[in-house]
């Protein structure tokens, strides 16, 4: 098998193609939005400026170049590790992302751990006796998790803790895990819990469906007939075989968290990557948005790779394939 046709080469190439597609798409979409960085910066005061002033500003922000030149200078920069520069923050996008990406990753990991801790046991509880009261309870919690929007839950939780107990770690200046682990964990706890409540719901539903399906399979009946103890049957045989869809769902949700926790980041003042994109869009800082979206897309690709690896660990059939 030549290097060119090797499955890994093909996968890398296809991931590369995906990222290129994302790059082109985000580049075009940004410029399709009316307004530019000058208007974002000066608002209606732009109208009070002379054409020569506007021209000077266009040059300052690099808007005087043609779209092709802008695109290729950005892409060229990427290959040299230059993600662009934010005039607003007066930092490079790499530096900005170095600050925001760890925040988002930490939040995403904590959220996923919490969601699994809530979702999987609840799903198994629901599946343990179909259409029983406990199934109803599990389903109800799942429905609540899916239907209560995170901004409502987040604001309510924060308001309640502040008013009742004067407790609001998120009102303090943000600290990283390395600066002050105890305060950092407190600052992450409420947002992770709010996000986990929403994400536990699909995990719970997936677990329930998968467990119910596996339980109806022949090998479970055989195992039961052979006298496998119920506890072992439940965990090793049923849950073990129901893991593939659960892992798929978890991977999907994790990928979503890498880019999609903007609302919760806003409410709890977390300087994560979602907010970096949002501020970039508001300020029309093209380089910031383009490069950050690429970083997020890369994260997505990476999470899917991890999911793939986990499949191999839990399912011998994938390993064999």
């Amino acid at each position, binding site marked *: 098998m030549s290097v060119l046709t090797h499955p890994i080469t093909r996968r890398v190439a296809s991931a590369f193609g995906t990222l290129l597609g994302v790059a082109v798409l985000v580049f075009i979409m940004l410029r399709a939005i009316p307004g530019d960085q000058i208007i974002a910066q000066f608002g209606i005061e732009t109208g009070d400026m002379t054409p020569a002033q506007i021209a000077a500003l266009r040059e300052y922000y690099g808007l005087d170049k043609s779209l092709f030149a802008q695109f290729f200078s950005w892409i060229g920069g990427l290959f040299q590790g230059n993600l662009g520069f934010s005039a607003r923050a007066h930092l490079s996008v790499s530096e900005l992302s170095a600050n925001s990406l*760890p925040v988002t990753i930490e939040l995403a990991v904590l959220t996923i751990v919490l969601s699994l801790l809530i979702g999987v046991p609840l799903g198994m509880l629901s599946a343990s006796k179909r259409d029983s009261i406990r199934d109803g309870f599990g389903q109800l919690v799942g429905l609540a998790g899916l239907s209560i929007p995170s901004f409502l839950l987040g604001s309510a939780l924060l308001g309640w803790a502040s008013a009742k107990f004067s407790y609001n770690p998120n009102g303090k200046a943000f600290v990283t895990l390395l600066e002050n682990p105890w305060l950092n964990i407190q600052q992450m706890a409420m947002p992770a819990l709010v996000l986990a409540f929403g994400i536990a719901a699909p995990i719970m539903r997936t677990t329930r469906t998968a467990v119910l399906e596996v339980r109806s399979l022949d090998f479970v009946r055989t195992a039961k007939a052979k006298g496998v103890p119920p506890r072992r049957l439940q965990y090793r045989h049923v849950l073990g075989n129901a893991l593939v869809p659960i892992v798929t769902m978890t991977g*999907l949700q994790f990928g979503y968290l890498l880019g999609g926790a903007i609302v919760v980041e806003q409410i709890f003042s977390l300087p994560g990557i979602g907010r970096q994109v949002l501020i970039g869009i508001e300020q029309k800082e093209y380089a910031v948005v383009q490069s950050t979206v690429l970083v997020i897309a890369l994260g997505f690709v990476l999470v899917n790779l991890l999911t793939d690896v986990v499949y191999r660990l839990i399912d011998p059939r994938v390993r064999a394939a």
Partner: protein
Amino acid sequence: MPNRFKSGAIRLGCTAVAAALLLTGCSNDSGDTTPPTNNAPAQNLVIGVTSDVDTLFPWKATQFNTVNVMQTLYGTLVEFDENLAIVPGIATSWETSDDGLSVTFKLREGVKFADGSPCEAEDVKFSYDAIMDEATGAASRSSLASVLSVEAVDSLTVVLHLSAPDVVLLSNLAVINLAILSSTDTEESLSTTPNGTGPFKLQERKPSQSLILARNENYWGDSAKLDTIEFRVIPDETSIVSAMQAGNVQLSIFDDPVVAQTAESAGIKIQETSQLAYHVLQLNTVSGPLADVNFRLAIQCAVDRQEVLDTAASGEGEVTGPITAPAFRSDPKARPCPTKDITKAKEYLAASAYPEGATIRTIVSQGEYATSVNEATNVQAQLAEIGITLDLQVMESGAYVTAWLAADFEAAIALNGGRPEPYGMYNRYFISTGNLNTVAGYSSEELDTLFDAARQESDTTARANLYQQISKHLEDNAVWVWLFTSYTYAATTSNVSGFTPMANDSMQYLRTTSIS
């Protein structure tokens, strides 16, 4: 999710992991912000703001929070006091020549920049020359439109030579966009190390998170009482209220009345201040039905402004005429229809070229301020009563500003900024050569004459009279439909004292604020 995402992009993945680890490693820049303490307890104030500054360069600052931060870092030749009267700043006195063509400023002795270097006449000349230079891209270049040249006579004397008498020049010079910078600084150097003559200086900045200022010991005025001020970014106003309740934040300015009410019911002190900015239905009188004065008057008479205020902003504000500055305020009753008058509106409409009414394409911005869409729908409902249809085009704020600047609308629901001096507030809209005259969509010889007279009239009473004539002309011709002014709400916890909110949104009195 497309299947190709699931592919094992190992090499790419490894690079990304390595990159992520590298990035994580870089992010550990700890910042201990505790200032040096002497005997008295440290005075550290935390202000909750919804957005970070978008520039540290004062000549390009236009956003609310950025302007406020710049005002604490930089100084201007003259300043506004709490009643928006002009008082000395870096200049202690000024004198206008008899012909009105030159203004001589005497500078304060011993004024220093934060880095300790002296602020002298050469710096003033450097600053104004640079602002007037188009290549700088300064936001308020037009404020110096009447200035021909700047002359530094000696180290403490500056003369501005004018093309024509300009009595509003002083109030233009008090704006932070005309801050005096050191002639040795550049935009690039100031973007990381601000160097101004204000009561505070920059101590630390974490972009998108916080900006910490420390007292500037070189400040020429009374030393600030606070040791540090932290502008902490909390993007959600409701979350700021929570942070104030928990004691993490001591001061914030809200513009949403609902948030202010929540804060007040939580025991936070709220001071409301009437704003110079005004809510208005702008009409583009260049063509179509709105070129017809009777049609415009019909609109003016059909709108109950109090109703708009009540429905869109829960009554939190005041019905206004064109001029909002307290010293020259228009009487909101002095207009063709002081209150809603459907009969009169129908008469005007019948007298117009469009007696059956017409459809007006109206742009509305969404997201920039809370009340815009509600104002638009209320005005739409009221105008429907006389057969005029507003076709509302609700846009994201960037799209709105782009359309607004291009005058690409027949009518626009707008919230426009106000200034203490009405000439500076409206000349760019309503004189025929004004930079925003196309956006205003109206000009007349009478207005040109009145504005020109106001600019040259140094007697305040006589100028006030001219402004009333301008106001009357705008109302009688229903140029726009002025609606109301709203409040901003200064929220402080009980341990904060000495902060005076101002009608121009300035937070300059942070310099007299203390915390117990």
